[in-house]
């Protein structure tokens, strides 16, 4: 065979193989981000399944704290709706509400010694706190995966493959300003 022809096919083969490699890498990134989201989703569902149990146990002892319990349950249903619709913005806001609601609930529970001593309450508190920590870790992991995917599909030459095969960016799970801002300790003492 003519050497020139071999060179031509070698160059063509190289370009095609490079394109396949880039495409496969983008598929891996997309799947990583999707898997990272499903990792978070599993824990959100588990935590949402535990919340009614926690509220039921609290109701037995906290007759005068209906508003606090109500807030937790409302935030829970907002999270469920946001998860169903895939609305990351609403999910972030509802998560924030729930975190505040749970904080209040656990703070108020300190005033009920019987509730504090209850095995079920202790277990649910432990479990929900553990799930919250894991959710925070997995949210960070999801955001990392999504950010890597979003950067790659905008970089050259990946952008050519990404546009040709309609690779979409993933939305990040946003952190609210209350979570990321420094805590004003002085304000707590003066109020």
């Amino acid at each position, binding site marked *: 065979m003519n050497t020139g022809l071999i060179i031509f096919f070698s160059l063509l083969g*190289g370009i095609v193989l490079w394109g396949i490699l880039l495409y496969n890498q983008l598929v891996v990134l997309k799947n*990583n981000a999707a898997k990272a989201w499903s990792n978070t989703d599993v824990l959100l569902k588990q935590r949402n399944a535990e919340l009614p149990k926690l509220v039921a146990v609290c109701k037995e002892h906290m007759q005068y704290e209906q508003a606090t319990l109500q807030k937790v349950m409302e935030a829970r249903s907002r999270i469920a709706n946001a998860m169903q619709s895939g609305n990351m913005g609403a999910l972030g806001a509802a998560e924030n509400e729930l975190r505040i609601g749970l904080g209040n609930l656990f703070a108020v529970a300190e005033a009920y010694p019987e509730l504090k001593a209850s095995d079920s309450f202790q277990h649910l508190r432990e479990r929900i706190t553990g799930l919250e920590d894991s959710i925070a870790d997995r949210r960070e992991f999801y955001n990392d995966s999504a950010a890597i995917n979003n950067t790659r599909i905008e970089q050259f030459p990946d952008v050519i493959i990404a546009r040709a095969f309609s690779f979409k960016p993933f939305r990040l799970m946003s952190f609210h300003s209350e979570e990321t801002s420094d805590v004003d300790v002085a304000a707590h003492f003066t109020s």
Partner: protein
Amino acid sequence: MWMWLRTLLPELSGTLPPARSDRDGLDWFQVMDNQRLAVLRRGGIMNLAAAPGFAVFWSGLCFCLYRYVGEAWLLLPANLSLLFALGLFRRYRLIVDTPTSRLSSGAQGYLELKGTAALPDGVAFRGLPHLPVTVWLPGYVEDEPFLLDDGAGRCLLYPRHAEIVTFPGDTPFSWLKAIYPGQTLYVLGELHTLRASDAQINRRERMAAVLADWKHNQHQLHQHFDANGNGQIDPEEWQEVLTAAERWVDADIREQQRVPGTHVMDGAKAGQLFLITNVPPERLATRYWRAAFLHLAFWLGVLLSLGQI
């Protein structure tokens, strides 16, 4: 080499040891030979192609082909170099683009972990006599699982299907490629967590199983729940049985939830890379990128020069 080893290990300086082996029959040259082959085998062809010595070998081979066989034959190593470049670039991108997970949350899927190497619980020594304790020693202990501890959790690594890249540790044995306990590890692979049995968490099924078990033991059932002693479990008494069973199942589920699962990495799905290394990932990524660039440059260089000829 033997003399040098003797100065390091005085216990080897016994009376008339064989020239190449110690009293326990450990042949150091054999150890080195086994190591060399095993490192190549476990590292795979791509890591061989990324080694600095490979560039010398490759250049020599190409020179021989050009000089004695014919310049057109250079296309063969050039196209192989293209494949090396693609494989190395893929590895580089995987290291750079895979997010790091923490074992405390145990995210499942393809991810990277960073932590320290450790022997599994109950294993005090692994390796060869007269050598430091190792968790993985090519040519000798290659398929035994070991642990990665990231400070918040531990993951059991099964290295059988892994591509393992090592560099000599901070020991007097500068020629020994191994993974030592306490060394920083970088792992890329598919993580999954084994639990007692997720199906067992299903409360309804567990209730049914407990009730069936209790019904099977009628004597004990009557002893505990037949409050009026009429020899039968009345509807009110049956409610008590249900409540007791619920309590029992709930307590059991709580216990199960308290037990953390075991994180395991034993391979990667869909032909993905399962990489274990004690080389810092930044250094490894740079090595892969440079090697990929050199192979690609060589491929292009050969094509362009042959095109001119």
